[in-house]
């Protein structure tokens, strides 16, 4: 394998600055929303005393879950020793850090008192999985940064395997922790299941890789650097397995709940009578997040279609958002069962499905976090040597004919000889 | 030892600020006059350490249920907040509000009154004239002060 050359992107074009400006504007909109949420109060959001976690949490959990999953690409290289993925490892670690910062920013800015962040850092209650997650998140950023450093600094390269191993284990614990934020909640029908932790791990594998593929394809198209079909198809095949994994854990989760009489009411709600939540489950999580990508990835006629890879990855992202929306908001919409078998009514919405309409500030805050993530990536690839100059199949020593990849269609730059 | 030094420096600076604030001069903040006969501690002590007292009282009250009728925020309010000539109480944002008279001046933001009321409560008693208990407390404070000074190198 030839010595890979990483290079900063030039970043002088109008398009580059336009993209950066657009992202910065969305970040500013998110910060404005957070400012008003803090000073006027959560009254300006759609959140209530019934739906206490809303769209900001959906986006934040999606980003945090994806952050740990996106690091898998680097782990495949250094932990599982697959050399071709080394070229992708830097982008993988960078995306992991950026996604986590984006998600964490949303979570923090949605607090009732973001000004008391210092309290969250100085007062810990160790029976709280939330408190553990604060450690896990901050640690993850540190470990990923260290990982990026040992990969980028030639003299430290030899540490990339042990550091990569720590990062890989850390990310598994982190996603288990994120899933357990919900899994440990005994009171709600939707939660109180240990399987939420592995479901979240599977989700992270799938969403993270989908985001990685989209960012990779966009970066190489916009910088006009060559991106080979073979590596994309390898990533795609992996993504298909991950998407199927999510479907599997989702199936087990719902079958378990259906089997227990006390949870059947909730299952009927999500699977049948829940209106938007039912729609999001079937159209979003199952169809878009599972069926569509699996068909696009494995049907013979789309075998060499990059558009199919991009569309499948996008479908997984949309389906993933729908699934997390259901997991967080659908779970709160379904009423708590304090009096089993009784008809219940009160002024505090006991016994009724709780209404929730996302508001503009919440969406702005959520999008702001996404934009912050992308802004970090866009800036970092210009400042640091994150992206290889050449990801054509030949750079990986992959034989395009071996797995039937197309030649580098759309590549405007051909690798020069004798580099 | 760097941490304590920094804190010490900050404290010296804030004391300096308070000293400047209280030293007379044209820019001196106008501290509204209190109603009671004397404060729960010596005025000089309170100027420097009221936050220690407030935090202590806060934690003990909330977590342990120790309620000292006078050393409470409503207790402070009942003495230090009076109606303005127009008949209203000063608002939390007003410079005429007791805490603000100094806090605005030294630029230290306080976050007590997003939850606590900043008006006197008719039910909370004003500090009464010094009793035997007060005198004993004052004496014990004095003693601990002296003992502490003696130990200080």
């Amino acid at each position: 394998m030839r010595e890979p050359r990483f290079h900063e992107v030039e970043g002088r074009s109008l398009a580059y600055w336009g993209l950066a400006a657009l992202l910065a504007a969305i970040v500013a909109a998110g910060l404005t929303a957070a400012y008003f949420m803090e000073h006027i109060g959560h009254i300006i959001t759609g959140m209530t005393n019934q739906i206490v976690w809303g769209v900001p949490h959906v986006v934040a959990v999606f980003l945090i879950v994806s952050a740990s999953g996106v690091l898998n690409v680097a782990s495949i290289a250094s932990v599982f020793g697959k050399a071709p993925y080394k070229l992708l490892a830097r982008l993988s670690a960078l995306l992991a850090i950026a996604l986590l910062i984006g998600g964490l920013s949303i979570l923090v800015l949605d607090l009732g008192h973001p000004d008391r962040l210092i309290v969250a850092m100085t007062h810990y209650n160790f029976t709280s999985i939330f408190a553990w997650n604060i450690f896990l998140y901050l640690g993850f950023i540190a470990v990923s940064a260290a990982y990026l450093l040992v990969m980028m600094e030639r003299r430290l390269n030899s540490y990339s395997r042990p550091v990569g191993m720590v990062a890989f284990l850390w990310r598994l614990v982190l996603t288990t922790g994120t899933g357990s934020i919900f899994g440990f909640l005994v009171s709600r029908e939707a939660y109180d299941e240990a399987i939420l932790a592995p479901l979240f791990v599977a989700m992270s594998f799938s969403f993270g890789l989908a985001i990685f593929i989209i960012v990779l394809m966009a970066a190489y198209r916009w910088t006009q650097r060559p991106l080979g079909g073979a590596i994309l198809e390898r990533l795609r095949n992996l993504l298909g397995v991950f998407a199927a994994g999510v479907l599997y854990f989702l199936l087990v989760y719902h079958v378990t709940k259906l089997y227990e009489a006390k949870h059947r009411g909730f299952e009927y709600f999500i699977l049948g009578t829940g209106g938007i939540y039912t729609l999001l489950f079937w159209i979003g999580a199952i169809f878009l997040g599972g069926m569509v990508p699996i068909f696009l990835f494995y049907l013979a006629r789309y075998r060499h279609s990059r558009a199919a890879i991009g569309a499948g990855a996008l479908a997984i992202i949309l389906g993933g958002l729908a699934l997390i929306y259901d997991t967080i908001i659908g779970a709160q919409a379904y009423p708590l069962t304090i009096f089993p078998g009784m008809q219940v009514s009160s002024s505090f919405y006991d016994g009724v499905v709780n209404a929730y309409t996302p508001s503009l500030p919440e969406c702005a805050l959520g999008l702001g976090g996404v934009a912050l993530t992308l802004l970090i990536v866009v800036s970092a690839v210009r400042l640091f040597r994150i992206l290889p100059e050449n990801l054509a199949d030949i750079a990986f020593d992959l034989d395009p004919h071996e797995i039937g990849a197309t030649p580098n269609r759309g590549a405007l730059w051909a690798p020069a000889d004798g580099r | 030892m760097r941490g304590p030094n920094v804190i010490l420096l900050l404290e010296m600076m804030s004391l300096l600020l308070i000293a400047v604030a209280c030293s007379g001069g044209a820019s001196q903040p106008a501290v509204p006059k209190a109603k009671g006969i004397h404060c729960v501690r010596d005025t000089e002590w309170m100027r420097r350490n009221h936050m220690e007292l407030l935090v202590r009282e806060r934690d003990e009250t909330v977590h342990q249920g120790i309620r000292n009728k006078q050393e409470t925020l409503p207790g402070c309010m009942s003495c230090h907040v009076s109606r303005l000539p127009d008949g209203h109480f000063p608002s939390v944002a007003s410079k005429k509000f007791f805490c603000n008279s100094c806090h605005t001046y030294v630029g230290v933001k306080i976050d007590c009154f997003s939850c606590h009321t900043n008006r006197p409560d008719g039910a909370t008693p004003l500090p009464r004239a010094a009793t035997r208990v007060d005198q004993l407390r004052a004496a014990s404070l004095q003693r601990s002060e002296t003992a502490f000074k003696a130990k200080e190198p």
Partner: protein
Amino acid sequence: MTRRKAKRELDAGRRRFLGMAAIASFALAPGVRLIGSAQSSSPASARANSKVRWGLLIDTNKCSETCQACVSACASYNGWKNEGRPTDPQWIRKVAIRDSETGLARTLPVLCQHCAEPACVEVCPTGASFRRADGIVLVDRHICIGCRYCMMACPFKARSFVHQNLTDQRPQAPRGIGTVEGCTMCVPRIDAGKVPACVEACAREGRGAMTFGDLNDRNSAIRRNIAAYSTTRFRADLDLDPSVQYQGL
């Protein structure tokens, strides 16, 4: 140094004062009303006692469908207002339940159940949710960051989040924007030896459906009732051991 010195002075002053206050309250405070029979008279400067476990027993047979006395007493003592919006706080609420088969109907107040194993306390990342030595579950709003995880965890919907700026709070019940709140069992009243506002109102305006007292005291009315009649604890499957129990369900 100044900070540490101030702390020491506080300590010395406090020890001295507490001693005095304890003596004073024995000598000077016979007017403090006793709850039950054998419990402490709770002088205001005394520490919450772990030998005591405050509890409520609510007799749903005596709870009238139309009566809102407990709710309005709580709202007025603690200064919260329900204007019918889903963002409004409700520390206590009247819930109507009906068995759809038999038509059996009851109304009852639901409030913080002050669990011995509270889910809210377990999940709180900063320790702002805590259980006092005498069993009262509270939020220390000085360290509450407003994450609402406790509201996700509570099986009884006992907590509310303050969605907007407040003014004119009650001096005895500070509450404010961006923090989570709920029934405090009227802790300032308990510390002063009185019963919670809802219990007082129920006895005065209602049919006396609520009994307040020390669950650990074998001679208290609440303990004798619990021993004599079968009572219900909500979500008993979760084994949270609530201090609020119901009779007649």
